[in-house]
């Protein structure tokens, strides 16, 4: 019986025997006789264009004598795979150094890279080891400073109080030269769509926009200051022959291109989806370079220098002229606009106007709300109340702390309270007597931001100094929190953030 069962068992085993084949092979890789260490397992992260060096020393454990070894370092740009498109050679290897120690000044576009060390023996036996390299740039956050160079061209400096970064001549650092021509305006905006010419896809980025008096517009992404749009590709059509581009500003969920021919709007682009970013056409209402954002109505306010009228552009980018019937607007035919700002202390949009016939400075205040549009409140000459501010070559509306209009006269800083009609001298600390005050701008990013500053600029012998004060009750509070010095004439200052969301600034959107 047992024998019978055993036979059945054997038969079953034969039936169910696996048809497993052993495909494994004997290990053929030999342990290399050059072992490289010294490269970080986690990789490296470094800020580009900030005079930072990648310093790595390769440690080698080998029986070869050191004199028979040669070292070479390479950089692999992972983004290059889009451009190369060759499966066998997806990445470009760029030689960046020789010798056991790498000392490499990182001036690369932000992105992911790999750094590779090659160790070769005299008999050509070669071993590689690589580490990740993450490159960021300082351009994505801080205060951009638009300046006119000694040669009459346009440059950008950058300072970031959070990191202590001071960087001069960013355009020359990145593009090799400043932008030709005298600066017109500087603006910063979030989430602007554009077509990435490397990947040929729609993308999105925070941007800094610079325009010149030569009617050039240069839109750069803040990650690396790469020019993503200019006069040739910013529109679906072309600028008119006499069109002057001023800026791209943020209006709630729209980004708005302002030229003397009017506004062109587009909705902000999401970072993951992107848009072409090109702008369309205006609706025919002309606009000047001055612009301010009004929070209650979520509108931007501008000026039509041709028809001498207020222009209100809503959060969808629709621009409309003001009128006597709807907006209580007086006839404005004899005025030019010098500056527009928004004062959060009383909610007024403040227009600084100059009467053509007399040359006198007038102030017009406007209130606005979300549901019932906007109304002109007051239009008055200010010389009698503000003899100094009315003489100022530059103006800035206090954005949050007080109902003040700032001006400069006789190398002193003045504040005119346009509600109570009182003028007083403001005395910022830290200025030397031989400095000339040339710039004032109250910049307000948002209520909780640490980047709200009353910025006062001086010049001395071709050098500028910008001092950033906390604004307390309309006055510079104590000593400057930080300052920035550089060469050239300051024409504008704007803050940019690394985030894809930023509340719109109040006060003027442009200097």
């Amino acid at each position: 019986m047992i024998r019978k069962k055993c036979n059945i068992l054997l038969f079953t085993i034969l039936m169910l025997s696996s048809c497993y084949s052993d495909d494994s092979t004997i290990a053929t890789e030999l342990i290399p006789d050059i072992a490289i260490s010294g490269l970080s397992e986690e990789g490296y992260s470094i800020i580009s264009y900030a005079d930072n060096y990648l310093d790595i020393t390769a440690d080698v454990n080998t029986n070869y004598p050191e004199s028979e070894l040669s070292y070479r370092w390479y950089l692999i740009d992972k983004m290059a795979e889009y451009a190369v498109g060759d499966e066998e050679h997806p990445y470009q290897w760029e030689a960046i150094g020789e010798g056991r120690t790498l000392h490499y000044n990182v001036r690369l576009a932000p992105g992911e890279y790999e750094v590779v060390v090659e160790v070769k023996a005299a008999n050509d036996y070669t071993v590689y080891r690589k580490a990740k390299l993450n490159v960021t740039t300082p351009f994505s956050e801080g205060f951009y400073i638009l300046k006119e160079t000694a040669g009459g061209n346009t440059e950008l400096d950058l300072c970031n109080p959070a990191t202590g970064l001071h960087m001069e001549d960013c355009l020359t650092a990145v593009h090799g030269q400043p932008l030709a021509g005298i600066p017109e305006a500087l603006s910063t905006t979030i989430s602007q769509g554009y077509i990435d010419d490397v990947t040929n896809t729609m993308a999105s980025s925070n941007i800094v926009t610079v325009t010149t008096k030569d009617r050039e517009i240069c839109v750069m992404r803040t990650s690396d200051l790469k020019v993503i749009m200019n006069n040739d590709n910013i529109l679906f059509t072309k600028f008119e022959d006499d069109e002057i581009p001023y800026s791209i500003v943020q209006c709630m969920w729209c980004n708005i291109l302002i030229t003397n021919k009017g506004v062109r709007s587009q909705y902000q682009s999401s970072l993951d989806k992107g848009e072409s970013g090109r702008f369309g056409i205006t609706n025919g209402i002309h606009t000047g370079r001055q612009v301010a954002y009004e929070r209650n109505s979520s509108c931007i306010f501008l000026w039509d220098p041709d028809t001498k009228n207020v222009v209100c552009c809503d959060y969808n980018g629709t621009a409309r002229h003001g009128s006597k019937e709807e907006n209580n607007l007086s006839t404005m035919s004899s005025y030019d606009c010098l500056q527009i700002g928004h004062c959060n202390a009383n909610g007024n949009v403040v227009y600084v106007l100059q009467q053509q016939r007399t040359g006198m400075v007038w102030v017009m205040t406007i209130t606005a709300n979300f549901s019932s549009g906007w109304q002109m409140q007051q239009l008055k000459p200010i010389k009698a109340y503000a003899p100094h501010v009315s003489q100022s070559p530059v103006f800035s509306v206090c954005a949050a702390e007080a109902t003040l209009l700032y001006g400069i006269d006789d190398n002193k800083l003045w504040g005119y309270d346009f509600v109570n009609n009182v003028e007083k001298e403001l005395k910022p600390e830290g200025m030397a007597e031989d400095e000339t005050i040339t710039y004032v701008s109250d910049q307000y990013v948002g209520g909780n931001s640490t980047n709200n500053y009353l910025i006062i600029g001086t010049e001395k012998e071709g050098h500028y100094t910008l001092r950033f004060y906390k604004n307390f009750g309309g006055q510079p509070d104590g000593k400057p929190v930080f300052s920035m010095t550089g060469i050239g004439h300051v024409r504008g200052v704007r803050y940019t953030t690394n985030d894809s969301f930023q509340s719109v600034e109040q006060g003027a959107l442009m200097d």
Partner: protein
Amino acid sequence: MKNRKAICVLLASIVFVGCEKSLPVYDYPHNSLNFVVTLDEETNEVVEKNYSFVYAGDAVETDTIWVTVTTQGFLSDKNRPFLLQQITAGEGKRDALADIHYESFDSEQMLVHHLVIPAGASKHKFPIVVYRDASLSEGDVCLYFQIKPNEHFEQGLTNYRTVKLVISNTLKRPEGWEEYYFGTYGPVKHKFMIDETGLRWDDEFCTSLSDFGYIQYLTMMLHQRLQVVNAERKKQGLDILKEEDGRTVKFDFGASF
């Protein structure tokens, strides 16, 4: 008793013996062709593709519609001819006539030069040549066709085995027409859009529109051009632009900026 236990252990072991077999190599012998067509999102049926000679301009008597097929099955290192056959579009529809409304699928030009899957290719684009016949003035014609099986290819997947073309000399509402942006469809409006932009505004163009900024630009431009054209018409004593049924042509979205 010991033997019985040993047998149980052995049996249990056998049950758990792995039996790894080599996976069969893909050896599906059939080759078929699927058309690249658009399916209706609700019915999952092939959507008719409209072609109108209006897009081509008055001078054009012959035009080309490109159709793409993809292969199913192994690739081949030789050229593989395939055949097409027209099928009826169904009741109430007028079928296109070979060599009257389109170049016959049996023509030498089609058979030798176009209806061939090149060696090594898995995708092929071939032309359908359509004619502007006078009979189109009597109404549209439908050209529905499928793969005619031969020694190389069978018909493909059910939902991808038919192409439905409608050939006309009038404008039809194109696939991808978004009422939110372009408003109510009308042939007069459609013709105005083609004339003013120089763009085709056909199925392919309308379905390709995805950049909001571009749509905004187009609608604003059309609105502004319409104001100019209407002003000119008024000067000439004409009514503003309207559809045949009296509806006013307008671009509300473009006017809102």
